[in-house]
């Protein structure tokens, strides 16, 4: 016999349940259920009207069957009938049934709403509670429409019983969540806030829940609740344990109410009123102090309740982010928890610290715990705790500890759970990019990532490393060398082959001088992996091969033989076959010039929001993530663009501007790319260029509408009329979300852009040099080297500047000599330059001789900033 200690056990129901439990198989169970369903159906259809008790019993049986997992398609009418019974138990079962089996039949809904209306008006608190419960459980739109205006009235009416007030408050809360537009708060706001002062703590608890949700939607309306909440909280926190009687839970004073009040306060910034603020601070300090006191009970319930309040208080301190003293104390408290015996507390401490790490006041304090977190990563048995440790390391990472943290995350990755590997890979990639001062470290880190967890390195990650290598001249050689060495490993991951293939294809020439990585060696290395790779990788490798043909004519024959082989030309995959055929043909018929143009080095990538960050946000859903706000932005440093023509010239949170330019004699063409980084469109986008008279800039029209995430292009035609020294300014105006944005960016159009390099023999050079000997024609400058003095880098810069480098002219091989002609519409100005580096003193001497004083001045100015 089942245990029926009191009240209304329905005997028939108990027997039925017993029968079901005794069924030996699923078929037997289904058989028994069907028998019962037939029985109930006939009883419901029968001539005799059923008495209340039987109806209740059968409805309850139907409910049981439904909860077992079978579908029920009748019984609603009978359940609704039960609602109008006067017997409490029958009503209760009726309400339970319709709350669980929600039916959208409009006739039924009308009847249900009617019954609820009657119960609400009945003045019987038990019946009212049942009705309110039903509304809260179902929360359908029809119910909201019918009752949303009645419930606030019940809530604030003076003669409503406390228990009904509680139900009304929470019912209103539920309706507000599902149909916020139907719940009119306006006139009730003040009275609802007043409930915070109610004597009955249960009412206060329910009211606090309600106000918290409402305040999130319209904080201004409920501002007055802040002072009441602080007052209440402080009374609870300072109360003796006997004061609150039954609201004390295992010696902790009203933990639920305290936590709710603290959550309500998190909807608002710290109070402006000084006395209120100090009262709140006192409160929080008391809570923090209590944590240090010895526990009043050994039971885990006591510590859970106490710590629940403590964690919520810390969450409030973090949210306010205004009292450094409190923040540091919170951080220390969490630090203590990091090494607590209880796993739960360690887990929560790690989680809380993540948010603390982003506050500037406590960021340093959080960093002091780095060793504890790292050891947690290594020793915790619970994978979810280890995951929180990874999150915290990610959050506390900054320039000072980035190398250490990335190294730890990489070593953790080797043994990490497969389910979290992808996330860790993304995080390491983001950190490596964000904090790379030296991009060689970045390249090493990504290659390590591929080596350790290649399968989990998504496309976004290796696309990014390639983008960065292409955009940064200084790391291309290193990348080529490192990737070459990494490929030597006998078993390397396919992603590494992809990255290696691309980078060697673009930059293999940078390491081709060394016999160990000669073109033929590079090709053989890549080709040795060819047959082990999937189709997309092979396609990439074929492209690398044709790039090799362009870069290294000496291996053309070898590669052509490979392309010519049957396994390529008759490959089953269409893409591979097409590439092999086309590349082979291209290599045969194209002249070196055409080949060089087709296979020119990739231009820098214009950047949108890092796709890696977007992928991580998608994975983590709504959780908090540090922003890439201080990520690398090419701000208006025009000095960067003196010797190069492509790149990003401006970036802020909304817009990114990149450009690509080419010049011929005195004409230039600039392609400006505007990228919308936001998720809202830009409207009325327009630009205008203001420039000195000596320069003509003609803008082609630009699209006035830029969609979210899209990029548009504008062409500027430039003509140099005569020499100039001021750079033109691009003014941009657009409408973003209602506000007008105005941005002014300097366009990197400098005199040296109109340089044409001129080769000449040394006698000619010296002759010209003597001819330009007049004092105003020469400008000389001695300056300190800002960057490292590297011959290759200097050469590259001079070539980028636009002159031809003349070898064997200067008797001192360490010096650089260049010559070129500046083309303007009116004249052409011949220019000679000499750059003398002094490595010991880390200084340079630069001499410019041209036929026009202003040109000499300007060119010297521009060039001296580059070193």
């Amino acid at each position, binding site marked *: 016999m*089942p*245990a029926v*200690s*009191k*009240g*209304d*056990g*329905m*005997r*028939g129901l108990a*027997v039925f*349940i017993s029968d079901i439990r005794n069924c030996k198989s699923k078929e037997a169970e289904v058989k028994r259920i069907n028998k019962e369903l037939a029985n109930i159906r006939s009883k419901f259809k029968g001539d005799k009207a059923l008495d209340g*008790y039987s109806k209740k019993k059968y409805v309850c049986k139907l409910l*049981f069957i439904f*909860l077992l*997992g079978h579908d029920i398609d009748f019984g609603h009418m009978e359940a609704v009938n039960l609602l109008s019974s006067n*017997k*409490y*138990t029958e009503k*209760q*079962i009726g309400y*339970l049934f319709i709350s669980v089996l929600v039916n959208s039949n409009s006739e039924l809904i009308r009847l249900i709403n009617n019954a609820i209306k009657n119960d609400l008006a009945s003045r019987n608190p*038990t019946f009212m509670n049942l009705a309110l*419960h039903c509304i809260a459980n179902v*929360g*359908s739109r029809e119910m909201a429409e019918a009752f949303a205006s009645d419930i606030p009235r019940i809530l604030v009416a003076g003669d409503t019983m406390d*228990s009904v007030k509680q*139900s009304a408050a*929470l*019912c209103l809360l*539920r309706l507000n*969540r*599902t149909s916020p537009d139907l719940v009119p708060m306006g006139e009730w706001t003040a009275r609802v806030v007043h409930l915070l002062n109610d004597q009955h*703590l*249960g009412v206060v*608890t*329910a009211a606090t829940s309600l106000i918290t949700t409402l305040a999130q939607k319209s904080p201004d309306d409920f501002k007055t609740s802040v002072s009441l909440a602080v007052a209440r909280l402080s009374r609870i926190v300072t109360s003796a344990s006997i004061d609150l009687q*039954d*609201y004390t*839970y295992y010696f902790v004073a009203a*933990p639920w109410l305290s936590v709710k009040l603290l*959550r309500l306060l998190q909807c608002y910034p710290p109070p402006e009123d000084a006395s209120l603020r100090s009262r709140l601070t006192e409160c929080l300090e008391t809570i923090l102090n209590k944590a240090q006191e010895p526990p009043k009970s050994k039971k885990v*319930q006591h510590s*859970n*309740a106490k*710590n*629940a309040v403590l*964690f919520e208080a810390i969450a409030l301190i973090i949210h306010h982010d205004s009292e450094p003293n409190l923040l540091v104390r919170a951080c220390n408290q969490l630090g203590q928890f990091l090494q607590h015996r209880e*796993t*739960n507390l360690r*887990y*929560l401490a790690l989680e809380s610290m993540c948010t603390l790490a982003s506050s500037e006041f406590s960021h340093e304090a959080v960093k002091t715990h780095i060793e504890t977190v790292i050891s947690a990563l290594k020793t915790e*048995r*619970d994978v*979810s*705790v280890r*995951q929180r440790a990874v999150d915290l390391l990610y959050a506390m990472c900054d320039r000072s500890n980035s190398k250490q943290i990335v190294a730890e995350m990489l070593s953790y990755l080797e043994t990490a759970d497969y389910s979290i590997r992808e996330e860790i890979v993304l995080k390491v990639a983001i950190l490596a990019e964000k904090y790379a001062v030296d991009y060689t470290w970045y390249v090493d880190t990504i290659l390590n990532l591929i080596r350790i967890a290649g399968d989990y390195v998504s496309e976004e990650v290796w696309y990014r490393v390639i983008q960065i290598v292409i955009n940064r001249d200084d790391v291309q050689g290193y990348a080529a060398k490192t990737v070459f060495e990494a490929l030597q490993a006998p078993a390397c991951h396919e992603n590494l082959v992809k990255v290696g293939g691309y980078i060697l294809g673009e930059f293999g020439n940078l390491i081709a001088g060394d016999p160990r990585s000669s073109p033929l060696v590079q090709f053989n290395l890549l080709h040795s992996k060819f047959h082990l790779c999937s189709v997309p990788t092979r396609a990439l490798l074929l492209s690398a091969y044709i790039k090799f043909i362009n870069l290294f004519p000496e291996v053309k024959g070898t590669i052509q033989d490979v392309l010519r082989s049957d396994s390529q030309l008759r490959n089953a995959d269409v893409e591979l076959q097409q590439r092999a055929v086309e590349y082979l043909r291209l290599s045969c018929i194209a002249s070196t010039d055409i080949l060089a143009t087709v296979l020119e080095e990739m231009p820098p990538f214009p950047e949108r929001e890092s796709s890696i960050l977007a992928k991580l946000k998608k994975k983590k*859903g*709504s*959780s908090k993530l540090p922003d890439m706000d201080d990520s690398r932005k090419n701000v208006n440093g025009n000095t960067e663009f003196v010797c190069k023509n492509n790149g990003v010239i401006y970036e802020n949170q909304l817009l990114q501007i990149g450009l690509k330019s080419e010049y011929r004699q005195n004409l230039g063409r600039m392609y400006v790319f505007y990228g919308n980084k936001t998720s809202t469109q830009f409207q009325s986008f327009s630009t205008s260029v203001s420039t000195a008279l000596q320069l003509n800039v003609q803008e082609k029209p630009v699209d006035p509408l830029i969609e979210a995430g899209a990029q548009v292009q504008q062409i500027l035609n430039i003509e140099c009329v005569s020499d100039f020294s001021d750079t033109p300014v691009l003014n941009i105006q657009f409408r973003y979300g209602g506000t007008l944005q105005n941005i002014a960016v300097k366009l990197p159009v400098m005199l040296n852009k109109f340089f044409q390099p001129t080769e000449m023999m040394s006698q000619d050079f010296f002759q010209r040099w003597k001819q330009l000997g007049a004092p105003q024609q020469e400008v000389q400058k001695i300056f300190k080297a800002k960057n490292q003095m590297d011959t290759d880098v200097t050469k590259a810069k001079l070539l980028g500047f636009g002159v031809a480098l003349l070898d064997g002219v200067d008797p001192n091989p360490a010096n650089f000599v260049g010559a070129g002609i500046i083309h303007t519409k009116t004249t052409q100005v011949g220019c000679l330059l000499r750059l003398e580096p002094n490595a010991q003193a880390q200084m340079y001497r630069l001499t410019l001789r041209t036929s026009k004083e202003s040109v000499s001045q300007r060119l010297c100015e521009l060039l001296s900033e580059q070193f």
Partner: protein
Amino acid sequence: MRFLLLFSRQGRLRLQKWYTAISEREKKKIIREMTTMVLARQPRTCNFIQWKDLKIVYKRYASLYFCLGVEHEENELLALEIIHRYVELLDKYFGNVCELDIIFNFEKAYFILDEFLMGGEIQETSKQIVNRAIESSDMLQETMEEYMSKPAF
């Protein structure tokens, strides 16, 4: 709170309470995922799991697992105490509650739950008041004699 589930160690569902409107198919899917996830947990691991955009708080009492799905902002330790409070109430009502009590008196288990949780929020935190409410609704019910004289089908 989004949902509350009770299931046995064999994965049989004993109680399910949903605080948001979702389809039956969704419910079944969530039940399956919860039972697999929670039953797979090792002993002495923490009671919280991150799942999609929710936090799952679970605790085992004897042969039953109590599993709550709460929103991100909710306090995990208090959620554990909500479970404990519910167990205390059941214990007081049934006297040394066991799984069988909940199976055979499932509707009572729902009624008790409804007395102290509503719309996903805790309604009444005073144990005495909740107990009194449950007892008084019992008073409105019939006596043992009346029960024994009822038909057994």
